[in-house]
């Protein structure tokens, strides 16, 4: 049924959860929400007749519980599709795709190429957002819990690498590149992509039960992908439209 969409239309806005992680999501100096994911969502909702989006910044770990608790209508934050998440929320078709990267000190002193390398070096620590994809990748690669440091946001991760508190900080490639650009620190280096880590794509995540809204979203998304407007929005941020169009939700959710 379309009741959810009708409700959003009549209230005139949709509540979206975003992270504070450029270029996926960003907040401008005037407080305006931008970034690739919200921009796409804003456009699609406009086409669906919902005038605007209202964003609240959240930690990655709090997004799905927040969605379930009805705090947001949709998550547009670079929350990558993975089977467990597909079970917890209703994803749209892929929007933003990216590989994983690590931020390390200049010269990569510990010689990391993959998460397994971090696991092997018993003194190495790696930072990742709590509840994020990178945290799980590291844990799955065998890095013990106490060496995976939960870092609240990108700037903190960057700072902790600079200060030598952690040996590597892992985020998607474009996020790390954005951090690097802002920090402009010659003593840092980016390893991208991390070997063995798959390319992930995010989608707009809806609450289970809001599939009708999700389907409407998908229809508009497909139209935009076809017309090239989709590429126009995300490519300035560095994302590849082709990558998103070369895969589907069903494939990503089925991946092991």
């Amino acid at each position: 049924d379309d009741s959810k969409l009708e409700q959003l239309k009549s209230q005139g806005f949709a509540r979206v959860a975003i992270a504070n992680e450029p270029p996926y999501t960003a907040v401008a100096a005037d407080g305006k929400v931008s970034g690739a994911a919200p921009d796409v969502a804003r456009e699609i909702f406009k086409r669906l007749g919902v005038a605007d989006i209202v964003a609240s910044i959240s930690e990655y770990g709090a997004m799905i519980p927040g969605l379930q608790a009805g705090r947001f209508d949709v998550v547009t934050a670079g929350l990558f599709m993975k089977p467990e998440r597909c079970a917890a929320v209703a994803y749209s078709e892929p929007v933003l795709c990216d590989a994983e990267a690590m931020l390390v000190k200049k010269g990569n002193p510990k010689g990391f190429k993959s998460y397994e390398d971090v696991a092997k070096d018993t003194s190495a620590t790696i930072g990742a957002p709590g509840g994020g994809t990178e945290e799980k990748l590291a844990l799955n690669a065998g890095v013990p819990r106490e060496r995976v440091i939960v870092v609240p946001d990108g700037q903190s991760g960057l700072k902790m690498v600079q200060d030598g508190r952690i040996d590597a900080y892992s985020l998607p490639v474009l996020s790390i590149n954005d951090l690097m650009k802002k920090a402009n620190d010659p003593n840092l280096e980016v390893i991208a992509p991390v070997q063995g880590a798959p390319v992930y794509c995010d989608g707009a995540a809806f609450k289970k039960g809001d599939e009708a809204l999700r389907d409407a979203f998908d229809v508009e998304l497909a139209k935009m992908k076809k017309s090239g407007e989709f590429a126009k929005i995300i490519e300035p941020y560095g994302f590849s439209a082709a990558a998103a169009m070369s895969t589907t939700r069903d494939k990503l959710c089925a991946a092991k």
Partner: protein
Amino acid sequence: MDWDWNFVWQIMPTLIQGVKITILATLLGSVLAAIVGLGIALARRSPNKALSRTVGWAAEFIRGTPLLVQLYFIFYVLPDIGILLPPLVAGVIGLGLHYGTYTAEVYRAGIENVPRGQWEAAKACNLSARQTWTHIIIPQAIPPMIPALANYFIAMFKETPLLSAITVLELMNQAKSVANTYYRYLEPITLVGAFFLAISLCSVVLLRWLERRYGKIER
């Protein structure tokens, strides 16, 4: 969403890891706060005006601003001037400094609550300043302070979740990480709440006992 006991048992070991860190941080923070507070209290009584004023304002500042922001500051800004502290140490220093400004007030009140007549009697007995402090004032000032100090240490205990913001894996952080992994907030947060409530209720009993034992000095 319903309460899931299996989930509770599954996450319990992780949470207990967090409890250990929480208790450790509280204990270390209390010791530091007790010492810092004494330092502040003495500095504020100092005849050196510059010292007492500076310490006074610094303490006011620390007491008037949020611990959370102070923790960010200690953890993320101090490294810029070359002070790099491990998360737990940074957290303990934050707690100790912040609560030190409170314990300083307890010390001050404790000392001021010793009646003026006691100072005067000590003088009439011709005791020296040092003897007056060690034999007359401190022994009378300390016991009434104990409940108030304990009170602040319990309050500090309840603020340790803030350390999760600087990556200390204490109870709250473990709970959040569990919640992040399984997308369930109900059980972890409720358990954390129950844990704090349990400790607090025990500490109420402890406090009442301390108050009975030390709270009043009979004159």
